[in-house]
């Protein structure tokens, strides 16, 4: 059984939803690129240089 207070809360929520609803007029908001993509440039390539792997001796 719903209490009086809960019922009143429900009524308020319903009224707020009806009266306060934002206008529907969507606008796209594309995500921006802020970080340099890994491997995009020469400097990145140089920074990622690692010594070449060698196989274990004796195997």
């Amino acid at each position, binding site marked *: 059984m719903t209490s009086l*207070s809960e019922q*009143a*809360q429900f*009524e*308020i*929520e319903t*009224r*707020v939803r009806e*009266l*306060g*609803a*934002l*206008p*529907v*007029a*969507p*606008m*796209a*908001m*594309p*995500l*921006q*690129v*802020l*970080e*340099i993509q890994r491997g995009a440039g020469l400097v990145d390539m140089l920074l990622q240089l690692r010594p070449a792997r060698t196989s274990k001796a004796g195997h």
Partner: protein
Amino acid sequence: MAAPVADQAHSDGRVYLTRSISLAASLAAAAGGFLLFLQFGASDGLDVIDILRSVLIFASTFWLAWGAMQALAGLTTRPPERPRTEGPITTRTAVLVPVYNEDPVATFARIAAMEASLQETGFGDLFHFAILSDTRNDDIAAKERHWFLRLLADTGAEGRMFYRRRQNNKGRKAGNIEDFIRTSGAAYPFAIILDADSLMEGETMVEMVRRMEAVPDLGLLQTLPVIIHAKSRFGRIMQFAGAFYSPIFARGLAMMQGKTGPFWGHNAIVRVRAFAESCGMPELAGKPPFGGHILSHDYVEAALLARAGWTVRVDDDITGSFEEGPENIVDHAKRDRRWCQGNLQHSRLLLAPGLKMWSRFVFLQGILAYIAPVFWLAFLAASIIAPLFAPPINYFPVEYWPFPVLPVSQASKALGLAVGVVGLLFVPKILIVIDAALRRRAVPFAGTARVAKSTVAELLFSSITAPIFLMYQTRSVLQVLRGADGGWPAQTRGDGTLSLAEAWSGSYWMVTNGVIGLGLANWFAPHLVLWLLPVALPMVMAPIIISWSSKTSKSRLFATPTERHGSAVIRQQDLIMQRWQGNEAPVQSALPGQAVTHA
């Protein structure tokens, strides 16, 4: 078309000239400080600690000089004529009020006051309010709904006032605004972005729209909000400083930044299409504090608008824009902790593709603002331990010379440096007082004499509290560097008085550090103890200073024009608050209340 092009070229030239002079003068001051200290340090033989201290002096002096140059630029220039449309405005504008666990009565009373003020302009129907709730506390959310209905009933603005609560806080405030644009952005060419504690005169909002209408490539227009409703000693000093110095510093900033202006997150108007096209905020790779949501999104949004070719401007001549500030040092430090993390996070964006050079410099400035105190503290620490590294004095440097050669004291150089540093801190403010007296800007602040006394008191207070802020900022930087995320705490608003016990719990670690610092100095470098007292004493006395400054101010000093004469929208807000809290059931009462019955 030739005239506007010539005007633009002239304006760009002035911006580059201001930047160049400011940069050159700051570098010169920093180099001077570096050389003076190097000579001082070398008097007993140059060692690695002397070089380290000289480098720290270079960085710290540069930062101080840069601030001083900003004030000088503001004092020596006048705001240019801003284009604006005449006659009736025609553009529909959304007024966005993001809220996050705020007191709904205070927030909605501000909205009601702004609505009344807008109606008086005759253009009220062109402004729609959107309350964008990110509140996570269900009790506060229930009160928001209750008071929203009351707001509608009081203002009769049904169809022009909206309320929505997000199910999650994705992207925090930036995500909240973004969510509005994705839902309703196409309905509004302009949006005024406010904070929950923002207040604006209707005429101010109309003026902002006029300036946006007149310049089609203006993407964002920032106003300079004035702090209001401060009651405590700390709050009123900040309020005075904000009202009296900030317009000059802001004008200097405007002269340096040209079309690459700032966004401070609120009390600004944006062109919604520009904002939507340019400011979709990604999350940074990795975890907080350096990864994840971008905390200080406003600086980044300004940079992104500029990257997309939009003009971002701060107009310091727009009045009637208000906000509230923290009432005590601890609340200020809490807010600063968030800003610190946000600014240090910008280190990830210094090399972001396509940004204007000035935007990168602004990020660097923000980082420096928080790193500079660490430099000062490192300088003090290095000075304490310097005697351990100093080579023994050689009284017989010349071979076969039978008489001792006593080293020449270089104390005058250290003194000169200290005077220079203090000058960089004090002179801009003293010049602002002189300028205010000459141009009669002091009159609304209760006259030149009161302004001069207030400035002296403010300088004294800021000197005493500087070491306390230095410690808070250093702690924030260290917390961020070791990976601690400050989260998204709701802002503390309201009274803000702190007892001595509360102040102690917020600063006992500072007292400990102060005592240890003095002890170490007494051990390793007793001759430095006197020099360190201005820094160490406020640290040791921090709880007393914090508690004292949080108490209600009864001083006649620090009067501001708004405090003395008020403003129509502030009076309106106060009346509405009185009506809602006094004659009506208090907000804590059981819901639903009268608002629902009448809605």
